């Protein structure tokens, strides 16, 4: 697939998201799943961008597929695009069929695991798992669970679980799913793919989403500073405000670079070290950036009616999903310590 096709994909996504992510629609999405928007995403095939060509995808480069999530983050897309891409990637890797409709993955919360057993040839999945993104809206879930120490992917329809609803700060569904069911299908996960890799791809996706959201809040904050007049001039003329916006831009740039690093690391076989550094850096940028955006916007940006919160609440939620900064920096730090002082630089250049 050529570069221009990837650009076309991003343009399609941008147009689609622009159409479906205006403030009234984002407000409505907090109460009700935006089915029309999802239908448009499916029609455009965006949700299948991470499926390899041999499994029915359309041959987009992994980095280009993931770049759609930056655009999604920029528009605060209230849909399980990342989750469906992640589920389809997991299913395709295991040679399992990929259902139509919104999908999700489990487990996602730190340290949780489901129990996969086999008796007389029949598989069974048991246990409960929390913070599953868009659980209540998914038609099926791709579950990663170990059987006799080997990671397996199980496909389960929505009828196979019961739900206790939950949400993140942005009121995106984060549900607890309880299983006591026979999966539709089970296969060993693709070689090299286990819980750590699933977590890492999720983290990479959130990094991209955060980079997009930061780009959005930087743009709107700069615009706001040019529009809002106090003391006879736009507040963007005050040096204190300019310096703050410069810092925000810097954090956005850092998150963008981190997101690129993460996307490439996924494409190169889910390399954990650069993804860890990226999620940590993007998460740190998210917190700092959201705070500055609110500071620049003053009181109006703090209201529900203003749309800044659709982005900032997502930033503050996504930085804690698929591992926070401490979790991922621990991985990086242990890696560097194990390599030792004299190999620190070599590790950095090889990351």
């Amino acid at each position, binding site marked *: 697939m050529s570069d221009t096709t990837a650009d076309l994909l991003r343009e399609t996504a941008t147009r689609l998201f622009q159409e479906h992510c205006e403030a009234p629609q984002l407000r409505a999405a907090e109460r009700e799943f935006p089915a029309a928007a999802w239908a448009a995403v499916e029609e455009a095939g965006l949700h299948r961008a991470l499926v390899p060509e041999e499994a029915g995808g359309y041959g987009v480069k992994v980095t280009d597929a993931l770049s759609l999530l930056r655009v999604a983050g920029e528009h605060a897309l209230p849909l399980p695009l990342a989750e469906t891409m992640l589920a389809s990637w997991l299913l395709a890797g295991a040679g399992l069929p990929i259902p139509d409709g919104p999908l999700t993955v489990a487990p996602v919360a730190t340290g949780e695991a489901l129990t996969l057993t086999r008796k007389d040839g029949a598989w069974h999945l048991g246990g409960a798992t929390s913070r599953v993104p868009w659980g209540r809206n998914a038609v099926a879930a791709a579950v990663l669970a170990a059987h006799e120490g080997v990671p397996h992917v199980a496909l389960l329809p929505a009828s196979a679980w019961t739900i206790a609803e939950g949400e993140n700060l942005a009121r995106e569904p984060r549900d607890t799913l309880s299983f006591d069911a026979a999966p539709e299908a089970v296969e060993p996960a693709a070689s090299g793919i286990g819980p750590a890799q699933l977590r890492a791809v999720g983290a990479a996706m959130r990094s991209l989403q955060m980079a997009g959201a930061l780009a959005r809040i930087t743009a709107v904050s700069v615009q706001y500073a040019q529009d809002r007049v106090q003391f006879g001039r736009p507040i963007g003329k005050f*040096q204190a405000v300019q310096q703050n916006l410069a810092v925000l831009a810097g954090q956005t740039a850092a998150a963008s670079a981190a997101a690129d690093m993460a996307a490439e690391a996924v494409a190169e076989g889910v390399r954990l070290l650069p993804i*860890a550094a990226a999620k940590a850096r993007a998460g740190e940028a998210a917190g700092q950036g959201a705070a500055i955006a609110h500071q620049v916007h003053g009181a109006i940006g703090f209201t529900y009616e203003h749309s800044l919160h659709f982005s900032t609440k997502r930033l503050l939620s996504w930085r804690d999903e698929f591992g926070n900064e401490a979790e991922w920096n621990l991985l990086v730090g*242990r890696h560097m310590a194990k390599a030792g002082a004299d190999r620190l630089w070599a590790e950095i250049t090889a990351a």
Partner: protein
Amino acid sequence: MNAFAFAPPPPSPAAEALRDEVRDFLKTELAGRTPLQKAESWNGHDPEFSRKMGARGWIGMTWPKKYGGHERTALERYVVLEEMLAAGAPVSAHWIADRQSGPLLLRVGTEEQRQSILPRIAAGECFFCIGMSEPDSGSDLASTRTRATPVQGGFLVNGTKLWTSLAHLSHYMILFCRTGDGKEDKHAGVSQFLVDLKNTSGLSIRPVNAQSGEHHFNEVVFSDAFLPETAVIGKLGDGWNQVTSELALERSGPERFLSSFAVLVELLRVLGRDPSERAAIAVGRLSSHILTLRRLSRSVAGMLQEGANPALEAAMVKDLGALLEQEIPEVARLLSPVEPSVSSDSDFAAVMAYVMLHAPSFSLRGGTREILRGIIARGLGLR
């Protein structure tokens, strides 16, 4: 849509091959260097080392061969720079010449200036300093007062330059001074001159020691110092355009985030292979920052290679870099208690002392933080 964009750094297999070459060279050349010496980073002055680098073709790397350069790419040059800095190589003697003085002559110098000077810089035998700041002109460079007055055959220069790093060890200075009559706006009527420090009478160099007690900076006083016509660099009166393009280019290099890298190395050494969770998280965080900054920095190098002028992006990298450089010793001291002392037997204590004494300068030199943020704000459309 944002006003800035960091394109992914282009892959460069040639640069990676070069990396191994440079590492082998450094392993031999820096074998006896102590951690404290390495902490000097690009402050370390060693003409012999510069000559060796020149002999390897690692100075003037991107310049045309006809001027003694090697016509290699910006990313290959980047690899050499970052390997030198990470290893704590003593590169300061040729640093300015390679980074900006040579490129200025390449851009606007006369053929004679290029032929006579560039090959010597590339050989690691000709060192430059920057004559920009004055006692009353720091960030406000355009307020420069040093003046070159036309006389028979040249100019007489009067004024004082301050903060001139390594003037006492350099062969030439690129002098930025006023030549106009002062009636136009302050950005007009300024020019650049090539000052032969060894062969110009009427100039005196006095040390200005840093708080560490070290002598890097100088005050250079011009008192009816004569410069020949041939000393003019570029176009008389066009100094502002010439100098701003010089400034913008080099804000994003690896020297902008590796100044305190030695602290992280020595910290890791004292923490050992199995540090506490708290220490590992802190080290990991600093490493995550370095990885991200390196990517941003290499991205800018790639954009420069493509012929772009990413002044906004470069300012952002410098701003982020200085924050990290200053933060590293502050984080390190809480992970392994230490009383910093340059004369300590502990490498960590000595390196911490060195870096702490220099840390305030990281956000002052080469683009003061507040000014950089003003540049970024301008790039965002706010000014």
